[in-house]
């Protein structure tokens, strides 16, 4: 049996060396990219609008990518149902609004429901299979993809649903560029959620336990961490991040339909792989990069029209896997017999 183990050998991994080896070129690249965007924004209104919109969409992709990464890091399972789960929770929010809740009441209630849903799925369906085989667990998530899709269509039907806009219809004018409040709003909501999740992992005892359980489950159990609970909570948090992505994707599409998250899942896969499948920061950065570049490429590269967004993301995904499988921020995995 070949086992995947995240390495590099500790003695080889001095912090300075690890950062010196990988991060500066990457961060230089990102800084150069950001500078390029800034110049473009100053020179062209359309470019500026597309960039802001791309950042907002990219934040949504990044949020879903982060959900994928959290699950992957803890369990080595790629959750194909993550997008459909996000779509389903968005329908829950729509239903809650129909029942009379305000948008933001429904928003927070939905996050709570998503958390419960995520944990229950992990405990009931994924864990029993995952103990036998990781690929088996991946197939279960594919099954959940179809199942959730079917349930949503069945309960709510396939026709478009409309939700009230969370950010109103206000339009800002910044130096001659008109920007709908929607986009900065989306960006802010997603980034706040991401920062909160990051803070939970970074500063709380629970977060420490979750990180420990993801890195070294056996040793974590020895210090008293309930590894099973940590994995379930990880799935719950991933579902919450997914729900945020779904709720923020809806206003950008202006309506809700069962296929809402399917293209976004592909972009999120590309984002997660671009950033490195086990790097949370990479997922968010990857999401922003994919979001902006999709928007700009479709506008400025004539050969790539909007139908080719998914193939473009696919090309990015395969390209990264071929050229640098660890992504921008990932660590090398060592395969052992």
């Amino acid at each position, binding site marked *: *049996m*070949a086992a*995947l183990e995240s390495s590099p050998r500790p003695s080889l991994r001095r912090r300075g060396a690890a950062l010196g080896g990988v991060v500066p070129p990457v961060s230089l690249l990102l800084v150069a990219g950001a500078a390029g965007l800034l110049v473009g924004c100053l020179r062209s209104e359309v470019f500026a609008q597309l960039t802001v919109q791309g950042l907002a969409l990219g934040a949504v992709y990044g949020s879903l990518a982060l959900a994928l990464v959290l699950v*992957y890091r803890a369990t*080595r*399972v*790629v959750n*194909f149902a993550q997008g459909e789960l996000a779509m389903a929770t968005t329908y829950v929010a729509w239903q809650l609004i129909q029942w009379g809740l305000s948008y933001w009441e429904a928003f927070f209630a939905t996050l709570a429901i998503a958390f419960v849903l995520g944990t229950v799925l992990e405990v009931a*369906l994924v864990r*029993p*299979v995952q103990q*036998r*085989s*990781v*690929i*088996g*667990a*991946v*197939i*279960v998530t*594919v*099954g*959940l*993809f*179809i*199942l*959730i*899709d*079917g*349930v949503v*269509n*069945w309960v709510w039907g*396939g026709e478009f649903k409309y939700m009230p806009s969370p950010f109103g219809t206000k339009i800002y004018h910044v130096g001659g560029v008109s920007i709908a409040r929607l986009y900065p709003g989306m960006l802010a909501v997603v980034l706040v959620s991401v920062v909160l999740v990051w803070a939970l992992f970074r500063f709380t005892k629970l977060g420490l336990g979750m990180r420990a359980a993801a890195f070294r489950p056996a040793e974590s159990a020895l210090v008293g961490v309930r590894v099973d609970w940590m994995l379930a909570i990880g799935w719950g948090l991933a579902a919450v991040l997914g729900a945020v992505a779904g709720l923020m994707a809806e206003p950008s599409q202006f309506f809700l339909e069962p296929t809402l998250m*399917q*293209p976004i899942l*592909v972009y999120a*896969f*590309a984002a997660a*792989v671009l950033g490195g*499948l086990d790097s949370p920061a990479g997922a968010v950065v990857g999401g922003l990069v994919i979001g902006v570049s999709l928007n700009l490429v479709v506008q400025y590269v004539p050969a790539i*029209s909007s*139908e*080719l*967004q*998914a*193939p473009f*993301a*696919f090309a990015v*995904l*395969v390209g990264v*896997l*071929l050229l640098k*499988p660890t992504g921008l921020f990932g660590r090398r995995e060592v*395969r*052992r*017999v």
Partner: protein
Amino acid sequence: MRRLLPAIASLLAVAGLLSALPFVLSAYNVSLAARVGIFFVAILGLNILTGYTGQISIGHGAFMAIGGYTTAVMSQDHHTNLVVTMLMAFAICFVLGLILGLPALRLSGVYLALATFALAVSVPQLPLKWSKFLGGRDGVQTSRTVSHVWLYGAAWAASAILFVLAWLILRGRVGRAFRAVRDSEIAAVASGIELPVYKTLAFGISAAYAGVAGSLLVLATNGFAEPSEFGIVLSLQLLVGAAVAGLGSLWGILAGAAFVGLLPAVSSGVPVIGSSHGRDVVFGAAVVLVMLLLPDGFAGLLKRLRRLARA
């Protein structure tokens, strides 16, 4: 030889049963049985990939799309004989599978699943882009349509030929190499197996099978090749079938193909499940339940029953 006898007997039984069916069944049921044959071909191909190399693909619907469009376009534009278009679908998908299988050399496990998923989402977008050539959202139609019985014969003849081909491939040196790759990649390399060659080959073969299945599927839908027919759901259905089938068993693959091919029709009279969404619910639940309860699919169940019968 003695070990082969029961296998040959069950093969003959299946073949006999299948050739009798068209005389017994109504036209509608013959078309259903043809559908099962189409999925049999595709799942058989997937079985070679997943079963004998341990690789998983969530994107073989993409190759069905390519095979299907091959048949539709060749028939429409050049009036090529339909059987010839199937051979072309086989060849084109084999080559494309080899080319797209090259990345598969470097990917394993979940990474390959990711890449193939993205492939499945991407390929149906292409006809929208090159709509002049591929018909856009409306699709392309073959120059002639076929009867249910013709389709039935073609589907099961293809099944039989490809089954024998798979058997020939898998029992020899290539099959041994495939199994070694599945059991341990690193050990396989250590024992001198050229990993890239065999992984790509397995991918190419399974893609070629999917191509033939796609070609048949277009004929089954009145000769229409359209993007919506080959969406991600088709790829997922193949995976459902493969999961139900389990590994390396003729009966398992038949069960998987029958499950995917017949469920929509069988359930159409049933309330709730009858709608296309209810069907998705059943498909999804079936995958989850099979993975939970029958991790080795129908093939594993048969093996267990046989062991029980002997004990």
